[in-house]
């Protein structure tokens, strides 16, 4: 009788268990379809933005930073005029170069190249930045590009050739 009662309880228990399991249904859809990537979570607050790079109206351009290739005695230059927009970006680039931020300096020049793609001064500047970054192959390429745009201008041609020569030596 005891056994019977226990058996009854067990059977009831199993029945109830079974019903519960049935009622709870199968694993719901969507489970395991998207594995969350183990990634550092996005912070709830925004990080403060880096240094602002605002294009100010044109100030005096600082001289080319040390380490760039310069002609010993440049004669009176007949460089093609640089637009205000290009000048502003050149200035911004020089600021970055002085601070050692070469990637951003190059980015400013590349922006300027979208405005004046055939301006040899920009290609020279970019080549000098690549020299400082140690990318001598690119420095030479930029020098050659500047050279191809400097036909007829002795000073620019000389600067471009000097850049090429320096890059090739390394």
């Amino acid at each position, binding site marked *: 009788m005891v056994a019977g009662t226990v058996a009854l309880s067990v059977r009831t228990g199993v029945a109830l268990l079974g019903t519960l399991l049935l009622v709870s249904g199968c694993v719901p859809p969507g489970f395991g379809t998207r594995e969350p990537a183990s990634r550092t979570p996005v912070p709830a607050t925004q990080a403060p933005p*880096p*240094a602002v790079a605002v294009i100010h109206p044109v100030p005096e351009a600082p001289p080319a930073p040390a380490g760039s290739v310069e002609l010993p005695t440049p004669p009176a230059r007949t460089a093609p005029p640089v637009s205000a927009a290009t000048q502003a970006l050149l200035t911004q680039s020089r600021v970055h170069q002085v601070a050692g931020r070469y*990637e951003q300096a190059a980015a400013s020049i590349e922006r300027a190249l979208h405005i004046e793609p*055939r301006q040899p001064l920009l290609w020279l500047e970019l080549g000098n930045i690549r020299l400082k970054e140690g990318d001598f192959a690119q420095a030479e*390429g930029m020098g*050659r590009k500047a050279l191809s745009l400097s036909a007829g201008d002795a000073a620019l041609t000389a600067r471009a050739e000097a850049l090429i020569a320096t890059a090739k030596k390394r």
Partner: protein
Amino acid sequence: MPRKPRRGLRQYLSQRVLVGLGVTAALLLAVLALYIALLDRQIVRQFEGRRWDLPAQVYARPLEIYAGLRLTPDDLQRELTALGYASTPTVKSQGTFSRAPQRIAVFTRPFQFWDGAEPSRKATIRFDGGTVAGLADSSGQELPLLRLDPPFIGNIFTTHAEDRMVLGPNDVPAILLDGLKVVEDRDFDTHGGVSLRAIARAMWANVRAGGIEQGGSTLTQQLVRSYFLDNRRTLTRKLREALMSVLLELHFEKPDILNAYVNEIYLGQAGDRAIHGFGLASQFYFGRPLTELQTQDIALLIAVVRGPSFYDPRRHPERVRDRRNMVLDLMAEFGVIDAEEAGRAKSRNLGVRGTASNFASYNPTFMDLVRRELRADYKEEDLENAGLRIMTTLDPRIQALAELRLAEGLEELERNRRKKKSSPLDGAIIVTGTQTPDVVAIVGGRNARLKGFNRALDAKRPIGSLVKPVVYLAGFQSGRYTAATVIEDAPLTIRLDTGKTWQPQNYDRQYRGPVPAVRALAESLNTPTVRLGMDVGPKRVATLLKGLGLETAPPPLPSLLLGSLALAPIEVAQIYNSLANGGFRAPLKTVRAVLDTDGKPLERYQLKISRVADPAAVQELNASLIQVVARGTARGARTWLPPGLVVAGKTGTSDDLRDSWFAGFTNDHVTVVWVGADDNSATGLTGASGALPVWARLVAGFGDAGYEPMPAEGLQDVSFDFATGMMAVAGCGDPVTLPLPAGTILPPNPLCGSGIDNLNGIAERGIEWLRGLLH
């Protein structure tokens, strides 16, 4: 005595029953606990998984405005409108502009670029017809440069079609959160996941019938429901949902749950793309960021929550307007907005823009190339989950123009075809910069919205005469040929390595005798090209081709000289970009930079350049390519191009007229067009009759400057007779001026003596010209 055992037995039995029940209860509780633990794990994983599910956002090129830029006020207005800037009489807030005939005032949005932050600012841009005359800031000081925020062109999602634009807590206006709570879940701040009051309220409202339908579900329950696609409202599902909501509330804070809801809830359908979250919904319905929406817009989005297809503002505007206004009333009733504002908002139009289909799969062919470029550096999961921002080179104006011109052009070509039962035509277009390797537009097929086979990147087709410029360039580089060098156009037999012979023919099977190289190229004559090419050697041509833009050098066979080489349009674009770039190869790219979710630069794709051809020889070649359009097989382009616009290019036709190509450039853009049939059947079109009209109509709309030759050391401009290559004499012959290596000696022109010979020569050239028109 007999009673005792019975009582004992009953006691014994009841004890046992109690124990049995206790065991069962314990078992049941254990199962329940297990079940709850299972649900707990599921919902937490879902919540956290989705939380970190931030697909990379892709942006087109930002418009940079400066004095001297060729841009009309209409162009600028179009760009601002596409960016979601509102046109208002006074410019008082971010994202607005006002337009006068030759002047536009704008209040820009801030944007974190890879080279620094561009702050929000007020500026006035003055125009002089089709050019920017100058720009000034709010204090009147001249601005040298103004960079607008870049157009958002879509998310990179590679595996699933749920699209969202994830917002941080700071990007969500408070009025949206308050409005949501008031309409959907008034007890959100206090309930533990399930609100009995809400359920009771809902039952009461349903019984009464007529009040705004209160769902009994809390925001938490709706969030849980949105994680699992099952919409069956069975009791078991409701119970599970309720349990999970409670669990969710136990694990996570209210603000986090609310933020997840804002980013997760389904709000619309764009073709096969499901629009999730208020950030993307704001773009989808209004074309503007959520922070720029007005009260009635926010109310509309809240109204849509209850059922985006039932409350589709484009298909059921009246129904949506009614619900929006009810939402506004509720918001006023509960103090989210005041009655006056509610009244104003209710009187406004829905303001929903465009159609759903425009939003679906933006620029799939361009995105295709972006993904391929990124695959080298980023894993799929980084692109899906890390909230990256991808800055690209796409020019939306040129992209839209290219798509339109291809579709129109192909339709017209099919209409005018003689053989009406031919296979349908398709095509591809690529547009890049000239001195930069930016890919500004890609069209992979005539149906631009279709995410199918990307012909621009993957359809390799024989290039035919498109190869000829490279052959002549090899000739010029060898030092033995100039553009004026006379080459024989006469029957030719080549002995191949296999022992067989090859006799290349001209297109019209005619021979013209001695012709200068520029004419042979302009008129796409085969025998002079093969003569020159065999003299220089196919190997040199193959090596030069590789340098200009191919991964591997093609087999250096004689047939290469006439373009028996299959390339994809993007490869052709790289080659012609290197030519336009003056002999410098800069690898074409679409991605300029990748930023992390806070806008910090992760990777900048630098401009890389290397010299791959002699710049002087390339100048000579480009001057010859100008003649292709001025005097040669591409003469017909002048019908559509602005008068006086100098362009350089080359037609290309493959065997049996299966592939029709034109590749060419202005000063600002290189454009390659391919037209053909997908089943590779003959189309009856040459480069000049098929691809050229599409090309010319497209380029005419760019507003570009004409190609300016770059003076090169060692070259000087020389005039000579186009037909014969002899010295040019005023009033005699057809003089053309090209840069030739200094010291090039030209033969004197004997024809410029007697009048009769002149007439013969002119008549001959007249017939030539007529024949040329048939090309």
